[in-house]
């Protein structure tokens, strides 16, 4: 891991919304091959952090680099799985249409999809177990199925980096396990950053953890000891949602 190069580099990044600081002076490197969980309380800035990495929002201070360049230039190379907003409800598009959007290109989307595009979308849907449902309207699917289609859309881009924002929302417990298992398989070839508020369920999969609450505390692979994971795993309560009932991670230090 030590030789891996950073795919995402954040330097002294700050972002505020309507004068309220959301992200404060964050520096963070995400290395190639990582499987990092981004955890933190609601409103702690997890989604904003992801959007800063992708250039979807502009930082007030500091710089973000994605694949070594400003994210506005390189966002095409990333696979993004946004939070399910239920925007799909009633939308006239099939599962296959949505997966194909991962192949979108051209300044105004005027380019036709090629056979290679269709094949990439098919592969991504097969991988996510959604190929059978390819001709269903996206709004007819359950929350969990929709999330899988969103992951398929991100995979169809052919990206080496996946950023997922709460992919387990609306997914039942068994489905979550499957989702995380899939991410672990993907991690053999892809760098993964997953926002979640449940480290508990993720802990046996991830290699590193970034705790976000305006500032970011990063816990690298070296810190993720078996003992710590065991502790997390046996923890009866959701670690973050309940504040910090006990320390499973090493203390954040002074603050």
């Amino acid at each position, binding site marked *: 891991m030590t030789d891996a190069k950073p795919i995402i580099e954040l330097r002294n990044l700050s972002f505020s919304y309507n004068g309220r600081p959301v992200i404060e002076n964050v520096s963070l490197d995400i290395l190639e091959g990582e499987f990092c969980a981004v955890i933190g309380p609601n409103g702690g800035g997890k989604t904003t952090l992801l959007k800063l990495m*992708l250039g*979807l929002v502009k930082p007030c201070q500091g710089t973000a680099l994605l694949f070594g360049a400003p994210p506005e230039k390189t*966002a*095409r190379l*990333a696979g*993004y799985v*946004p939070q399910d907003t*239920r*925007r*799909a*409800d*009633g*939308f*006239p*598009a*099939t599962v296959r*249409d*949505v997966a*194909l*959007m*991962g192949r*979108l*290109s*051209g*300044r*105004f*989307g*005027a*380019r*036709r*999809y090629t056979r290679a595009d269709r094949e990439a979308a098919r592969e991504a849907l097969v991988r996510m177990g959604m190929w059978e449902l390819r*001709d269903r*309207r996206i*709004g*007819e699917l359950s929350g969990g199925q929709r999330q899988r289609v969103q992951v398929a*859309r991100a995979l169809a*881009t052919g990206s080496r980096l996946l950023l997922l924002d709460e992919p387990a929302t609306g997914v039942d417990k068994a489905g979550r396990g499957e989702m995380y298992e899939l991410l672990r398989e993907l991690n053999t070839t892809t760098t993964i950053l997953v926002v979640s508020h449940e480290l508990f369920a993720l802990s046996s999969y991830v290699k590193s953890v970034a705790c976000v609450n305006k500032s970011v505390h990063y816990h690298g692979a070296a810190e993720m000891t078996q003992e710590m994971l065991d502790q997390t795993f046996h923890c009866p309560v959701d670690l973050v949602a309940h504040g910090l009932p006990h320390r499973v991670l090493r203390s954040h230090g002074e603050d």
Partner: protein
Amino acid sequence: MLQALSHTFMQNALAAGLLASVICGVVGAFVVVNRLVFLSGGIAHAAYGGVGLAVFLGLPFLPTTLAVTLLFAMAMAWVTHAKKESADAAVGALWAVGMALGVLFLDLTPGYNADLMSYLFGSILAVPKESLWAMCALAFLVTGAAAVFYNGLLAMSFDPEFARLRGVRVRWLYLGLVAVVSMAVVLVMRVVGLILVIALLSIPAAIAGRRVKSLWAMCALSTVLCALFVVFGLWLSYSFDISSGAAIILVAGMCYLVSLIIPGTGKGKGA
């Protein structure tokens, strides 16, 4: 109906109605999936400011109205794109200000006694030839643009953020869409009135959107529905000697009600 069609004004009315159906069916599908019905309402009413200005200054109707409408439409597009939180109220304000300007300009025009109702509900039975040609051109422009930019427009309508990440200039597509809505509103308003424009942009597309699997099918079905409403409305208007615009709106509205009772294919709220 056949006897009615022997009149030139009825032939023109039918042609205008069918052209309006192509324009409103295709544009309406994009308006509905992008939830731009309120914005389109604002554009249609602000267009009245353009009507007033054209009459007041004695300028040609079509270019003047189009210019003023585009101005208001771009202002609305800017607030809805850049300041989503305050967009609702801002569009409402622009809506009313445009309309008020129109009323004021008409007040200030000496000796002008134009019937407000003819702009509100149009005069489909008295469509000038130039209007027909302009609508014909717009119908081609609209279907052509929808076909060429289909993938980009679909992705933007579904998830603009993701489309942006793919390198698509979402802002320009959005401004382009709003500009096309403005053109549709101005041309179709002349024919069927600014209130009917909203009905034709939203009702057929809303009925179609719940029953089809793709955006292009939604465009096609809403065009067909729109044409059916126009033809049936015109027939009612001719047979019972009632106002054509109102007849078309009521036919569309009744069908919308019926369609809400019959379950569609997509669960949840309409598109």
